[in-house]
């Protein structure tokens, strides 16, 4: 679940970044285009006005004022000219000709350009138009305003801004979608990898990730990962083969030694010789037991031991019942919550609890032993506590190591594999193994993930 939510949030982050980058790019490009186009348009229309103004100025000088006035009036009235404005004023500021009346109110800007809004009538319609105009001093007190409607420029700007808005919106949307799609693809690949890794942790090394066949980086990563798996698998199987054949070989040798020792014991004349043969046989058996212990630990640690649904309550009850007669001098307190099931390996779990009970009986003679099994929402917790000498906190780690026999235990039988097997079995079951002080004595707690009805339902 954790992996899933991280993938989710990384998709969101990626999609957002993608959208943002796309939107910024869009804004930059469109703003550039807008600015360049707007400037070009402005320059062009200003130049047109200026050209007309210059030619009118020349006309004024070439003709007498009355002709000029009527020429301006004609232009102003010309129905074919759309958007052009003229206003001619005489030396006393009197209106002579034109289609707008605004001149005396205007303050001439330093470059001679003015901008204003005026109601213009064209045909039947009258509308407020934005005008850009130049005011010319024609000489002899005559002033001429030549301008043009710049509404088109305004409209262009509005259209452009609207387009930019739409484009950026679309970019954001598209970016989000692309990011989400890309993120999902990556997250799916990541999830497949992490799921597989989880499977492998549980020991199914033979699984491989599916390739998409696109040959992209994800496929590259996946095939690298698969190669890694193949390598690990072959190493593990080599290790297992070596271990198995070595164990097989050792057992063969032990068996021959055993046969020879038994034969020797049979024909031995002297009692001392028989005792020596007894010792040899005893040691061979211990060696065999140790070998078996090591192999069981290896099996548990290889993670290849098949797990099944196990009624832990019953398993614990049976093993305790099995040991009960041997624990008669121990004031055994048993409390077992019924019907707690776990996914486990029956034989290895049995062996682990047997080791714990063996230890409690062996190391804490005549001291009370408490065996408890309780269930929480997620775990089945087995506790075995004795009132014996216990294990000092600093030596507890050593106790779970192979052949980690503790100081002072040399007089007691045991291979030093008991607790390390318990630790290996705990790892196989993803269980937490905890050793604590029972004050006095040792308390061992094994918390195994439970199969709850809820877990079974969600699996279906």
């Amino acid at each position, binding site marked *: 679940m954790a992996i899933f939510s991280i993938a989710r949030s990384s998709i969101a982050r990626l999609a957002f970044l993608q959208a943002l980058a796309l939107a910024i790019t869009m804004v930059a490009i469109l703003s550039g285009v807008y600015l360049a186009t707007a400037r070009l348009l402005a320059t062009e229309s200003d130049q047109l006005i200026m050209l007309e103004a210059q030619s009118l100025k020349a006309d004024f000088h070439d003709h007498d004022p009355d002709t000029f006035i009527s020429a301006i009036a004609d232009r102003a009235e010309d129905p074919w000219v759309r958007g052009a404005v003229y206003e001619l004023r005489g030396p006393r500021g009197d209106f002579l000709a034109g289609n707008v009346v605004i001149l005396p109110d205007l303050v001439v800007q330093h470059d001679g350009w003015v901008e204003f809004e005026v109601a213009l009538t064209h045909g039947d319609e009258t509308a407020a138009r934005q005008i850009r105009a130049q005011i010319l001093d024609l000489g002899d007190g005559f002033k001429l305003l030549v301008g043009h409607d710049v509404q088109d420029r305004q409209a262009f700007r509005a259209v452009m801004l609207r387009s930019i808005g739409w484009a950026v919106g679309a970019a954001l949307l598209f970016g989000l979608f692309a990011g989400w799609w890309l993120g999902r693809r990556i997250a799916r690949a990541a999830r497949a990898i992490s799921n597989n890794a989880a499977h492998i942790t549980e020991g199914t090394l033979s699984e491989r990730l599916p390739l998409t066949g696109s040959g992209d980086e994800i496929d590259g990563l996946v095939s690298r990962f698969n190669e890694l798996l193949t390598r690990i698998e072959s190493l593990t199987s080599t290790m297992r083969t070596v271990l198995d054949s070595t164990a097989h070989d050792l057992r063969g040798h032990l068996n*021959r030694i055993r*046969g020879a020792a038994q034969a020797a014991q049979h024909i031995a004349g002297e009692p001392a010789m028989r005792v020596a043969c007894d010792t040899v046989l005893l040691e*061979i058996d211990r060696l065999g037991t140790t070998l078996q212990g090591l192999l069981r630990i290896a*099996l548990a640690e290889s993670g290849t031991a098949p797990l099944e649904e196990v009624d832990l309550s019953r398993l614990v009850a049976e093993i305790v019942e099995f040991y009960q*007669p041997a624990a008669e001098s121990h004031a055994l307190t048993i409390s077992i919550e019924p019907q707690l099931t776990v996914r486990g390996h029956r*034989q290895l779990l*049995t062996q682990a609890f047997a080791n714990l009970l063996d230890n409690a009986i*062996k190391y804490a003679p005549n001291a009370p032993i408490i065996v408890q099994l309780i269930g929480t929402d997620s775990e089945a917790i087995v506790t075995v506590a004795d009132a014996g000498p216990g294990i000092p906190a600093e030596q507890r780690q050593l106790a779970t190591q192979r052949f980690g026999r503790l100081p002072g235990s040399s007089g007691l*039988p045991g291979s030093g594999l008991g607790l390390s097997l318990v630790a290996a079995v705990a790892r196989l079951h993803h269980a937490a193994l905890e050793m604590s002080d029972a004050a006095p004595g040792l308390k061992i707690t094994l918390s195994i993930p439970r199969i709850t009805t809820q877990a079974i339902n969600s699996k279906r």
Partner: protein
Amino acid sequence: MKILLVEDDRRAGDYLAKGLTELGHSVEQAFDGESGLKAAATGTHDILILDRMLPQLDGLEVVRRLRAAGSTLPILILSALDEVDERIQGLRAGGDDYLVKPYHLAELVARLDALARRRADVGPVAKLTVFDLELDTRARKVMRAGRKIDLTTREFQLLEFLMRHTAQVVTRSMILEGVWDYHFDPKTNVIDVHISRLRQAIDKGHERQLLHTVRGAGYTLTEDP
């Protein structure tokens, strides 16, 4: 008993053959799967001891072919391959028992006896009797000299196991496997404690002791010590 021993490890095979011969059995030896199968197919043996891993023909394959041919010869599989899964494979293939190397000769002999006896028994008997001890598997009742004995479920199963192998030696690991289905060696003397409890229940107050300890091997339930 006429025993056929198929074991490719000559030295181990020779020791075993010698040990079994000394116990009064006649032993025929084969050293690979092929000749072992041929010898077993003659049908002249009482029991087959078969190594799990053999040259030419694997031990499991020998068992499979014998069973496929309809042979009911009791088979004890010997193997250096431990682990429950291996045992299960051996037994599924048609073996009757499985013993892991290195083994005690006493353990092997005890298992051989058990196998030979199982063949003689026809079906599960409801009433088992040893001297004046009676066990009724259906009524789950135990009587000694006409008096009822109360036993726990496990004690009952343990006694039934011993009575089914009466007059044979049963080893501790046979008891563990047969009664509890456990495949490990307890480091404590817990089996002995179970036995002594059972002995208390069935032998206490009776002149004739039925449950005996066989030194270095295990236990036997018999009327003649």
